[in-house]
């Protein structure tokens, strides 16, 4: 009796699993691969740290369907991206385009790197100059330093 109950329960669970709605996908695996590859480069507007490919949001599913339909209708990847950018702005792109408003974004790190190297060069050259000039000590200070270090006084 218990076994029968268990079997019924398991059957019910399995049926529940089967009855779940399958995610919409193109019949053609090559097309589906293109859809997912493109969706992986686009941002989901609802959960902003997820790509359209990964997101479980309702809107992401709708947008994947739009992408699928458009690619199936023979539109190019670029056309689909343009379609989404026209509606949601550059924000949907995980790789923002290079233009006036994104200049700082793209070039900022290089500017900082160049500035850091500039400061480093400045610092090194200044230290070298100081060393050449005797470490920044005058004769009296040098004599005092020798005294402290216990070295015999030396005439330079």
């Amino acid at each position, binding site marked *: 009796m218990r076994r029968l109950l268990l079997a019924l329960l398991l059957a019910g669970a399995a049926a529940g699993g089967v009855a779940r709605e399958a995610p919409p996908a193109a019949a053609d695996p090559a097309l589906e691969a293109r859809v997912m590859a493109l969706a992986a480069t686009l941002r989901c*507007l*609802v959960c*902003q740290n997820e790509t359209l490919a990964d997101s479980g949001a*309702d*809107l992401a599913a*709708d*947008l994947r369907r*739009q992408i699928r339909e458009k690619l199936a209708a023979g539109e190019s990847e670029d056309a689909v991206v343009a379609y989404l*950018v*026209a*509606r*949601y*702005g*550059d*924000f949907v792109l995980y790789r923002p385009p290079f233009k006036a408003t994104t200049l700082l974004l793209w070039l900022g790190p290089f500017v900082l790197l160049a500035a850091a190297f500039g400061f480093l060069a400045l610092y090194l050259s200044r230290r070298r100059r100081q060393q050449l000039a005797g470490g920044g000590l005058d004769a009296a200070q040098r004599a005092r330093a020798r005294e402290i270090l216990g070295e015999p006084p030396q005439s330079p």
Partner: protein
Amino acid sequence: MAKARFLIPFGVFVALVILLGSGLKLDPREVPSPLVGKLAPPFSLPQLDRPEAKISQQDMLGKVWLLNVWASWCVSCRDEHPVLLEFAKTGVVPVVGLNYKDQRAEGLRWLSQFGNPYRVSAFDSDGLVGIDYGVYGVPETFVIDKHGFVRYKQIGALTPEAIRKKILPLVKELEAGA
């Protein structure tokens, strides 16, 4: 001069605080709409309460109007609703609803339960018009001018403050314009 050097890290610190502090004030959920300044995307949808009749953005040409995206499943729409009702009561400009990815019966029940601020609601069951309008977080509200150009997009619920500070001045300006 030697003393002033100690101020450099302090200055860098203050600059960082200002930079990060201003970053805190930005809301990443408010994605600037590329639609502002462009023609409102065309649509022709069945009306929510009269499936046989259509509503299109063309029908509103010549008027300044608000397009409010709402749904019965949307929680913030419930917060927004009294504000919208109050605004509709003043009759400044017509408010058209876009019932987004909803069930017709649910939407109608919502309106009869909470009141109907809309002149008419378009029924966008598959959300395709929503996609055309770049909707990603209901509620959203668009201000559209007499020539059919989108002038402003509010993401999230309208508040009395947003209406007073943003919507009303803009509407007044657009109404005065040719």
